[in-house]
């Protein structure tokens, strides 16, 4: 089993899953790909919506999550964010 993921890594993984699916994904796919419990995934998605990394869209077939520009920027700058937080004991 690999090293326990920190919050930053989990956020990165969720956003990356959405981006790899052309920026739009259903929650069941996130659950499958992100390796989280349902409750934890819901908590993370609420946080990501609040921070405007993703937006939720309700369709006839259920909910869809779309990554925003801010979410894409997070993925691009993830290593810098992680380096800074790790170095300064904030991770």
């Amino acid at each position, binding site marked *: 089993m690999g090293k326990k993921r920190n919050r*930053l890594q989990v956020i990165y993984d969720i956003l990356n899953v959405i981006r790899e699916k052309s920026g739009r994904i259903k929650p069941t796919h996130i659950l499958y790909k992100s390796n989280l419990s349902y409750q934890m995934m819901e908590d993370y998605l609420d946080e990501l919506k609040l921070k405007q990394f993703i937006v939720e869209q309700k369709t006839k077939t259920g909910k869809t999550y779309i990554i925003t520009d801010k979410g894409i920027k997070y993925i691009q700058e993830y290593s810098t964010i992680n380096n800074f937080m790790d*170095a300064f*004991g904030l991770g």
Partner: protein
Amino acid sequence: METIYVMPNWFFGADIILELLFAILTLAIALYAFKIYRLSDQRELKFFGISFSFFSLSYLFWAANNLFLLSVLGNESRELSLKDIGFYNHIGIYLYLGALILGVVTLFYTTLKTESKRIYLLLVILTATTFLFSLNKATSLYTVLAIFFLFIFAHYFRECRKTTNKLTRRNTLAMGLLFLGSIAFIYAPSYYVNYVIVHLLHGIAYALLISSLINVINKHGQKKK
């Protein structure tokens, strides 16, 4: 005892330059923390940035106090004391100590990883009370701040043991030096050599912190190329 600290005459001038330099370095760390906060929305980064902004402000007020409010004690030393200056000049000292308290408490609060604003408020009020109602104001306050720095150092030490990152080790050492500096400051109202030691320890600590920051920025630059 209303003496905040005593310092040797020969160090006057050099200390002000160092304090201004520390103000710039801490501001640089704060600004970069805010930049990373804008990208990630992680609240720890916001509080870390706020804490270093307060440190920067406290160094600015410290330098201003040294420039305008010191009393000469014979040929050897000068002191910053509440008793020798007018009431309005007390404001300068309160601003310096207020910013220092907020900086240390905010940094400690960041390491707690709690979202309770009441805990933050309680810590600020308790620390400020120590200064306002103590007969031996400076020593009491510096002792409380040293205890905060001990807990901050302990946090960094734990983080350091969890990772192999060299920068975390470097910053843990920096926090250790800031802790030692806060111990030295406890005796700064009585021994002027401690005032010099504090500046020396802070100088090494900020050199370590800023070298870590430069390392992070360089890695960021290399990634962009």
